């Protein structure tokens, strides 16, 4: 199974605006600085509403910081949205935006910014894993679980338990059974009564007593290729990023080893904590005790040096006469790779002066995602997304 992405596709999220006439409230209590890392985490919906706040230290952060943040966001637009570290008048803010939900963390003291960002990403991962996707409703519906998770993941501004497997054992994810139970009996607890055994073992990512009838391990290689092609159609840069995704269902505490035929092609590697460094250093063998279920074992990167071209070609053609112009984009397979390539999507942005579009495709579906720019009444910023489904040559 090969997934091929031509360009990193960004999910362009449409922000809806709301005006807030609130003035900033300055807390009157004297600020006493503490030597803790993160002070507070806010979850904001895509309309700027504070859905949740979790104070992590005794030094509480007022909600007014979110009002400030949202005002800045409205006045600065997208470039602010992509700024991971923001220095507000009173706090340093870290933001991570996932599927419209803004995760905002505040601190007042020096701390590694990547740590905060990485942590917020981890929170987002865990939440979307627990709630099967992220959106405003799902967070509000399960706010108790979100609270419990945040409380367990961070203690006094320092991450405590972030391993998804342990979290799952401590706080049960919502599922159909528990939902039905709670409807019928009005009583269900998602808090585990005992401490997961894994917290005390030397492999904290795996619980000890797992039993399966069939022992099986699935390994998927998912590769992404980033390429930059210049105007003349010449390949400027081409890199392949790969992930080894493993789905393991094995009884007990297995110790696995995985080796590559030709590990020397890999430029860089990054491992799940379960991979032992020594065997890789000496023999390039992945030796690990796997977590249970789905996880990302490693990711790697290598630069494609020999490849002259990528398997696909994209040829844009632009002709213009007077007020209207024609764009035609041709997408096809260059050298027959011996396999069908499916689910090709092409995404491009039209300049802001374009007022209307009429798009067709000879295969697949065309989607126009519009983004109304509030200052210009008639102009639309149009993102054309042309999806050719099951396109085979």
């Amino acid at each position: 199974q090969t997934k091929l992405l031509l360009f990193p596709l960004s999910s362009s999220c449409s922000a809806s605006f709301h005006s807030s006439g609130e003035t900033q409230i300055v807390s009157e209590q004297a600020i006493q600085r503490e030597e803790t890392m993160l002070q507070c985490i806010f979850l904001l919906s895509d309309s700027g509403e504070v859905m949740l706040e979790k104070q992590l230290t005794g030094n509480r952060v007022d909600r007014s910081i979110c009002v400030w943040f949202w005002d800045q966001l409205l006045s600065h637009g997208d470039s602010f949205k992509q700024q991971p570290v923001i220095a507000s008048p009173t706090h340093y803010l870290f933001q991570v935006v996932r599927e419209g939900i803004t995760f905002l963390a505040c601190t007042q003291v020096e701390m590694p910014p990547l740590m905060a960002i990485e942590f917020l990403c981890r929170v987002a991962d865990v939440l979307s894993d627990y709630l099967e996707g992220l959106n405003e409703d799902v967070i509000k519906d399960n706010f108790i679980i979100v609270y419990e998770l945040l409380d367990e993941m961070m203690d006094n501004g320092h991450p405590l338990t972030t391993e998804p497997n342990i979290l799952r054992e401590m706080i049960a994810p919502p599922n159909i059974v528990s939902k039905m139970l709670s409807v019928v009996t009005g009583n269900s607890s998602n808090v585990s009564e005992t401490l997961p055994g894994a917290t005390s073992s030397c492999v904290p990512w795996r619980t000890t007593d797992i039993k399966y009838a069939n022992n099986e391990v699935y390994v998927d290689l998912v590769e992404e290729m980033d390429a930059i092609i210049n105007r003349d159609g010449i390949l400027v840069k081409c890199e392949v990023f790969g992930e080894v995704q493993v789905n393991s269902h094995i009884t007990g505490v297995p110790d696995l080893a995985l080796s590559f035929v030709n590990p020397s092609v890999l430029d860089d590697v990054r491992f799940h904590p379960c991979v032992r460094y020594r065997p890789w250093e000496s023999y390039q063998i992945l030796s690990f005790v796997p977590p249970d279920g789905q996880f990302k074992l490693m990711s790697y990167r290598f630069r494609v040096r020999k490849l002259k071209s990528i398997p696909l070609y994209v040829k844009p053609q632009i002709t213009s006469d007077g007020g209207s112009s024609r764009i035609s984009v041709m997408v096809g397979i260059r050298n027959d790779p011996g396999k069908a390539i499916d689910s090709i999507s092409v995404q491009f942005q039209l300049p802001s002066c374009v007022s209307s579009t009429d798009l067709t495709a000879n295969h697949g579906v065309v989607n126009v995602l519009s983004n109304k720019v509030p200052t210009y009444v008639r102009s639309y910023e149009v993102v054309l997304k042309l999806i050719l489904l099951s396109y085979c040559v």
Partner: protein
Amino acid sequence: MFPQFGATADTLSKASTIMFRIGTDAHLYDDPEDVNIAPLLDSKFDSEKCEALKRLLALIAQGFDVSNFFPQVVKNVASHSLEVKKLVYLYLLHYAQKRPNEALLSINSFQKDLGDTNPLVRAWALRTMAGIRLHAIAPLVLVAVGKCARDPSVYVRKCAASALPKLHDLRLQEHSSTIEEIVGTLLTDNSPAVVGATAAAFSSVCPNNYSLIGKNYKRLCTILPDVEEWGQIVLIGILLRYVIARHGLVKQSMMFHLHSKEHSSSENDDSDADSKFGKEGIDPSKKYDSELASMIYRCYIEGPDDYLSRSSYSNKVFLTFSGAKFTSSKNNEDVKILLQCTSPLFWSNNSAVVLAAAGVHWIMAPKENIERIVKPLLFLLRSSRNSNYVVLCNIQVFAKAMPYLFASHFENFFILSTDSYQTKALKLEILCTISTDSSIASILKEFQDYIRDPDRRFAADTVAAIGLCALQLPKMASTCLEGLLALTRQDSFTSDARASEEEAGVLVQAIMSIKMIVKQDPPSHEKVIVQLVRNLDSIKVPAARAIIIWMLGEYSKVGEIIPKMLITVLKYIAWSFTSESSETKLQTLNTVAKILSNSKGGDLETLTKIGCYVLELAECDMNYVVRGRGCFFRKLLSSHLGSKKLEDEVVASSQNEGLLNVLAEHMFHEQATQQSPVPVNYRVYLPGSLSQIVLHAAPGYEPLPKPCTILDDADAEAEVSEQDGSDSFTGSLDEESGSYNGSDNSVASGGNTDNGKTGSSSEDENIQDPLIQISDENHLRPAGSADLEELMSRRDLETWLDDQPSLPNSSIPEQSKVPRSARISIKDIGKRVIPKTYELLDPANGNGMKVDYTFSSEVSTISPHVITIQASFENCSSETISNIVLKHEDFTTKPSDSSESSSQDDVPALIPMEEITSLEPGQATRETIHVRFHHHLLPLKLVIYFNGKSHPVKLRPDIGYFVKPLPMDVDAFKDKESHLPGMFECTRSCIFKGHVDYLNKEKGNHTFAKDKFLVVCESIALTMLSNANIFLVSVDMPIAAKHDDASGLCLRFSSEILSNSAPCLITITAEGICSEPLNVVVKVNCEETVFGLNLLNRIVNSLS
């Protein structure tokens, strides 16, 4: 909401989620208050309790205050259901600090839970107990933590470790040693998970207690790869600091390499460096690099604020490191093991860990191994979009110091369509830094595509980057110029049709880049200038035209072609003069004047005609600046211009003439080629730190420890002899540094001679103008120790020039960067300060008793929390008033309460005042009272007793007297100010009218006894000093500006907060005309942000 194309799909999906919401807590979040919560909390059933608690949490999540349920919630802490417990804990942690008394009720239950058999219960109890942060129970928590630190469960021990910082936050001096002891025990724990949590505790509890690390150093290193990722980040930092403090920097490392490079280059500097560059052809940019690199190195050790401020006073008093402070990575086991154990972390999945490990290798690894960090760092760029920017910020610093590290990986910094603007700008900058002869071709090709980017701001940045690349690689200059020229042509066509602002920005940037490149080597780029000038007709953007015209004047004598075409071009610009914008007009005038003063020979007559024509046009211009410039040039160039017409005047002013010629010569002929390279004052912070991203030292930022500042306890005995050795070393080191300064005398003496010049010139001017005294900086008053009274009694006006009064050798006004300013000190103002009087008791309400009070500038000796107040009691009635006494309200009503408050802070709200036995009618008396306000905004309720009756009164605090003067000089002020940027700074503006009345009065008298400026300065200073207890540091006034334009007037005041002696700096900048109300901007820099803000409001109120 805006209509969206996928609206139907949206509603469908929403409808389906409603189905899924059944059975979740959705209804609790949507309608938390649709049932009465209180009875549910008291219910017998756990499920009902749970529901109530969930509703409370929902309210908390939505930002409501539900602390009034606190007592009822606390009761449930004893519940056996773990779920109820967890929910109660969540609630407790949120509100405990607000309701400390009720929170104490939960302690018993915690203590019981700590003995529970379930480790989860123990851990939760400990976490919550420490998390509610009450001073009263701190000893109990400490005992509990000590117990849990020996718990069999790893999880509980981990929680014990993370409870330590919570205890530390309470600032209990008497327990700190116990806390550190527990940190020590937990650091030796067998479980890596516990060690990780303890590392976090260590860094917040006792980051400088290196002996704890020293004892376990090797074990900590070996355990490092097994520690959980978050702990790794902190632990890496701790180990790095320890190794540097213990062993110093590594000899083979990049740091030492930069350091030694800097030494050799500084030697070069001593001998005249310019000639050397000329001979050996050293690329000046390379020198710049090494300078920057050595700066990076010093910033890491000293912190950039220290370093930059130091370098601003005294140029070259470097910290000298003798060889003894360096160690070798090959011989030193500790360094070796650290590098060994951090290198597998490059494979970590957590980008923060990778960056932290890269930081260690950057600082400690031998130079030849540093390349190891490159690939992992580049891989990080791929990890997530959010961390991308942070990683790039760090790579930027690395690349600046060692461009060759990343040179071969330039492709990784090519821009992706999904990058944010900030990321794009950073990537451009990195690409510029790392471009080499081999890579520049492809980079430039890539740049050509970027110029077409729809984001024109980014396109302009790209154009600037092309210019920078050309500067760095002189070989590419002509290629770059060609590209840029093509751009100006192409853009000029589009700008005809629709000259949007952004497009203009790109064009201006392109021409600025051309100017920059041409400046490097004008003769070889002659044709470029010619082409630009030819394009003048089609380029419409004023700023771009101005630059081209400037270049024409600057390089009018360069090469063959330009002098020939000069007259034609001049005719053209003279013809188009009237239609130009004023910016272009000014440059046209400059150019004409330059060419005129340079020209000799045949064309002179034509040139003079053109010159006269342009000057005449200028003098009739609508814009006064253009008019003024025109008049000025006519005067200056009178010898060149109308020597025939003004012949009679020439005789009279022949002396003047000579002077003018010299002046003109100076202004136009000396091309400012010897511009010193841009001073390197980037702020560099440790790799991976927050400060590096926000570019100011975040609170709590610590640079690396000074190398070799500790000696390990464990090794101390073994190293006694070595210690002796090192002692003698430090002695010799001091001597060495002394001799280093001595050898550096040339620089210092240079500074002295400069000062001498200032002194002599000041004497000259003294004779001319006795009012303004220009003094050498050495004559400055000893500001630090100066007595306020003494300073204020001096009634003279001291002024000294800030800059050296050298001739304006910067040829064009455009190049003069800093507006010159003079500094005045007003000393006589102290006597005229009249503090405001407030009324405490009105005679109408108080049976004829009148009590007024003023805040005193004296600082109370009793306690820093106490404010001194002068109260005057006056008897306005016709009868004698006896037994007057002032007391605190609580003193009588609630004695218990006051005792409690005193236990908190040991100072009563009102120091008891002596009773005034009797006051005759009309008699008045003054008393000094000492008051401790609870808050700087809230009034204090007092009671006055006399004649056996009580009268409640309110004493309103004045935040201006919660500070005391902090004498300092301007440099110290600026230094302090630079330490308090960003969030510590607040500004507000207002209109100041205080001086207008006075000036109007003066006008009536027709006696301008005082300079308007002085009146303005004095009235602002007086208003400030009458309203707050502060110290006037300096008064800066602009001297370049027009006669009564007060813009740029700047007053600085300093003070420190009484209670915690945090400095509080006030800067007032005025703008406007002296005789009219001024627009005043007040800026307060203070660590206590809330206090600063309130003080600012107070000042603004009193000024306007």
